[in-house]
């Protein structure tokens, strides 16, 4: 993996500068700075409640930041509504999968291509190529899929909007280890096909294997930012997120 030096702003796809988000009086993000460069997989690690999901929701417009900037290809995108963010080329597979349970697999994918007048054939072929199981189950109701299949559908649905930047919120949540590694393989493939990925994870071991760089978020602040290999060998990260001594 390349790009040891972060934030050369010419190739930056996404830049967060001093991002503050609060829920009422409670500050969830207290000035987050983060850069994702073209073609990278960047992972954002942190425990429950650290602010990982909040960060992604702010990027995709589901939450409005109180202060700070979000730039996508250099343009300010903070404060604009989510459907416009999607139209700019940011795809979001939200936490907990959130597929439309009573829609078929195909209908879910159609919703993903909502911004297009008609469903783009090549996007559909790409998703079915990445996730053959979805092609098999295209007419099945999404609510009846297994957890892993629902996660695949959530990622596929986000890809249907033809994003430059894919935001993945804990794709490993609640899944068996075998399925997790399968999904991480596919994320790698998606990245190799040219999509930049910002991956939020609690499963630090898997995420750092895949990512070029990582950020560690603790109670709304970035406490560490380094290439993935460094984080993997960092004793503090190992103790807090890799279950040091367990392996």
């Amino acid at each position, binding site marked *: 993996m390349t790009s040891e030096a972060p934030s050369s702003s010419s190739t930056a796809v996404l830049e967060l500068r001093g991002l503050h988000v609060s829920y009422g009086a409670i500050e969830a993000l207290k000035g987050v700075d983060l850069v994702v460069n073209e073609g990278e997989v960047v992972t954002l690690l942190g425990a429950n409640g650290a602010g990982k999901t909040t960060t992604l929701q702010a990027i995709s417009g*589901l939450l409005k930041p109180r202060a700070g900037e979000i730039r996508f290809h250099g343009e300010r995108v903070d404060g604009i509504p989510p459907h416009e963010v999607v139209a700019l080329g940011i795809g979001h597979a939200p936490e907990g999968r959130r597929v439309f*349970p009573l829609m078929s697999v195909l209908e879910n994918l159609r919703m*993903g291509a*909502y911004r297009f007048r008609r469903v783009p054939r090549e996007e559909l072929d790409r998703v079915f190529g990445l996730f053959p199981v979805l092609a098999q189950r295209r007419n099945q109701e999404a609510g009846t899929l297994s957890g892993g299949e629902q996660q695949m559908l959530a990622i596929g649905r986000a890809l249907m909007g033809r994003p430059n930047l894919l935001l993945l919120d804990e794709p490993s949540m609640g899944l068996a280890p075998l399925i997790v590694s399968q999904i991480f393989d596919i994320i790698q493939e998606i990245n190799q096909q040219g999509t930049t990925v910002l991956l939020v994870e609690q499963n630090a071991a898997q995420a750092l294997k895949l990512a070029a760089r990582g950020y560690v978020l603790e109670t709304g602040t970035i406490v560490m930012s380094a290439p993935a290999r460094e984080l993997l060998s960092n004793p503090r990260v190992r103790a807090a997120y890799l279950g040091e001594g367990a392996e």
Partner: protein
Amino acid sequence: MTVGELPLAVRRPRRIDPRWLRLGGWLVLGALLCVMTSTEEGTPSDHWLVVRTALGSTKLIGWLLAGAIVWALLEVWRARGLGTVVSGRTAGVRGRWHEITGGRRAHWLFLGIAAVAAIVIPQFLSEFYQRVLVDQVAVFVLLAVGLNVVVGWAGLLDLGYVAFFAIGAYTAGYFTRALPVKPPFHLNPFVILPVAVVVCLVAGLLLGAPTLRLRGDYLAIVTLGFHEIVQLFLVNKNNWTGGNQGAFGIPHFSINIFGIHYQWTLASLPYWYLFIAMLAVLVFLFDRLEHSKVGRSWTAIREDEVAAAANGVPTVKYKLMAFAIGASTSGLSGVLYASRIGYINPASFPVVLSITVLSYVIFGGMGSLVGVIVGAALLTFLPAVFQEQNIVRQEDIPMWIGAILVVMMIFRSQGLIPSRRRRRELGLAAQGVSDADAMSETPEGRA
């Protein structure tokens, strides 16, 4: 460790056999109904007069007996497991029925039969029933079809729906010079229809734009308040609206173009045809809407609003759209109503009427066009029949409708003829898997 080894002696609470509890319930219900249906009124000095006379009369025995009989029948039914037997026996028939009724061709066939019935049957009814058809059934079916868009499809709880009905009616009053405040020009009621639609659309947008960004339950409160405001405005702004007296002499519809002259009059039948023509147009439009991108967006918003927004559905826009469509349908029926009745006053549009329409929609089956039409028609027509035949007294009708709704919510909460999708959504929501409406926190309104 077995139970016998437990050191503590657990005393089982004394239990009454649920069968006897149910018997008690039915007997209490019988006594209650006996009181409710008695004709004696209480007096200021003796509030319990009606209760004492009712419970002292021989009628009580009849009601208690009726309760006991219902109980006995239900117990036999339960004991023999007849429910499963019957559903097993009829499974084949029901399967065939779904096969026949499920198809697209059957859909149109039913629609054709319903249309022919709606055209032919009223011809043979007495003037009383024709009047019921127009003043009750047609008005409320039209209202229910509009509210279904808001509540059934977009999943928004609108408790001020009839306020737009009033706005439509007063728009008609204004442009036909029936109100104290005079317009610059006089319009035929037919021309007022689109004007009222636009007026209500704008009113709906003005009310919806600031509130639809909030959580769903706030919308219910705000719309309730809006209805109250509209009503108070109509009462208090005497020199514009005529205050409590309202407006008189709103003319009937008339056609006077291309050499065709037709004047609607006090006769009910022509108005009935006008109403069902309007209804047919709306049903056609709304059916197309439901199966369009708009309808799919509403479905997505209902099933998971956050996911819908994350996929690029402009959720506020579509909720606003549903709200405005509902408002303008309500306004449209307001114009028809005002012209039909000829006079309007604030008392014609009480807040409780909004709740009534909502209960018709829920009774018929939220989200199902056929369901809400049938539901609203039944709940407006049957009371009139019972009243005409002296089976129930007029002042008892709201009570009976309330009772029917309670029973309905216990045994068939999805409504009379639910849409297939909506029924399953309610099922999933009951299990906590997904949403069935847009009442949860909106994604954009939190920051």
